């Protein structure tokens, strides 16, 4: 009898802890919905650092960014617009627009882009808050390393203007 009470209490405590974790939190998908403006491209990690690169910041210049993203679906996209239905619009500064679908994987830490014409692409979400999005992905172009893309959430009016 006593062991039954202890087990039930333990079980309830574990369920309670999980419920506590879920209560008053929003899912990563909810945070993601909206428009995000790209603010920076940097190397999060570099494969090597030569004596000259120590003075160079980890910022990725426009040319390198172009080379890295050339074959990716996110190429030249500066505003990412996620809809709750699972669609995403990628706006470039030249006014081009690309439509595809997005999904979250893992525990909400993997962003998957599904484009009918291209193989699916996966990006790792490192930070996702109400107003900040940080995405990492590996690249072999130039200096092999992990690219860190940072976005800020923008208002809808701004996105419409663009």
């Amino acid at each position: 009898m006593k062991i039954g009470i202890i087990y039930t209490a333990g079980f309830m405590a574990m369920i309670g802890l999980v419920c506590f974790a879920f209560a008053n939190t929003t899912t990563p998908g909810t945070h993601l919905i909206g428009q995000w403006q790209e603010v920076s491209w940097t190397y999060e990690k570099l494969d090597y650092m030569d004596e000259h690169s120590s003075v160079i910041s980890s910022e990725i210049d426009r040319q390198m960014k172009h080379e890295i993203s050339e074959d990716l679906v996110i190429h030249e996209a500066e505003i990412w617009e996620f809809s709750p239905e699972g669609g995403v619009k990628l706006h470039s500064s030249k006014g081009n627009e690309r439509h595809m679908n997005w999904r979250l994987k893992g525990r909400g830490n993997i962003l998957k882009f599904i484009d009918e014409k291209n193989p699916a692409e996966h990006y790792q979400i490192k930070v996702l808050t109400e107003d900040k999005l940080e995405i990492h992905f590996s690249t072999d172009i130039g200096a092999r390393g992990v690219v860190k893309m940072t976005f800020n959430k923008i208002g809808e009016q701004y996105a419409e203007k663009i």
Partner: protein
Amino acid sequence: MLKRFSNDRALSDNIKLGVLTAISAGMVNVISVTLFFAFTSNVTGHYAILAEEIAKGNWYQAGVVGTWILLFFFGSFMANFIVINVNRINAYLAHALPLVLEIICLLIVGSYIQFFYKETLLETEVMVGFMLFAMGIQNGLTASISNFAVKTTHLTGLTTDLGILFSMFTQHEFRANQQLRDKAKIQVSIMVSYMVGGISAGYIYLQVSYNVFYIVCLFLLFIIGYDYYQLRLTSLAKKRA
């Protein structure tokens, strides 16, 4: 493989059980990483992630990972609970029942992916939960019936044991110890089988996609069926004698 319990088990029983279940664990883990980007045969990494998410204040993710760990725990709990309670009635049934539960979990995941999966985050989290529960059952069962000699779903302990064993084998007295040699045989066969399962799942997945789940179920059915067949043979032989 399933009919004997604890110290009554022969080395070959443990090796056969270890090999077949490790292949299925390796397959399940690789499919889950490929499909859902989450490990399902081991929880060590999930503990680290849980701690990281709590530290970052990501309570939703912490809740998800915490639930996954609990499901692995309940899987193991359930397997051993069945073993110790049903063993008095029928040893084979006690050992086969957890595997049946594991098959059901994997069939649910496979058929859900086949017919309903829309790749939403909630679906992904639930599927991973089912797979962790299934792997908890498998690990709990194999460890329970083999007196902790066979653990097939995670290789941290196994790699540690192998490191210790091989360092012991540098000395002749330990090399001559049959018990240690047997242990090494089990561990090496589990390690190789897990890798074979993982690699083959990676290849097979490209060809048959979610059907890999059904292949894993076939492996588990083979384990159940093999022992059932052996039991039938033994009882037939007894009747004739």
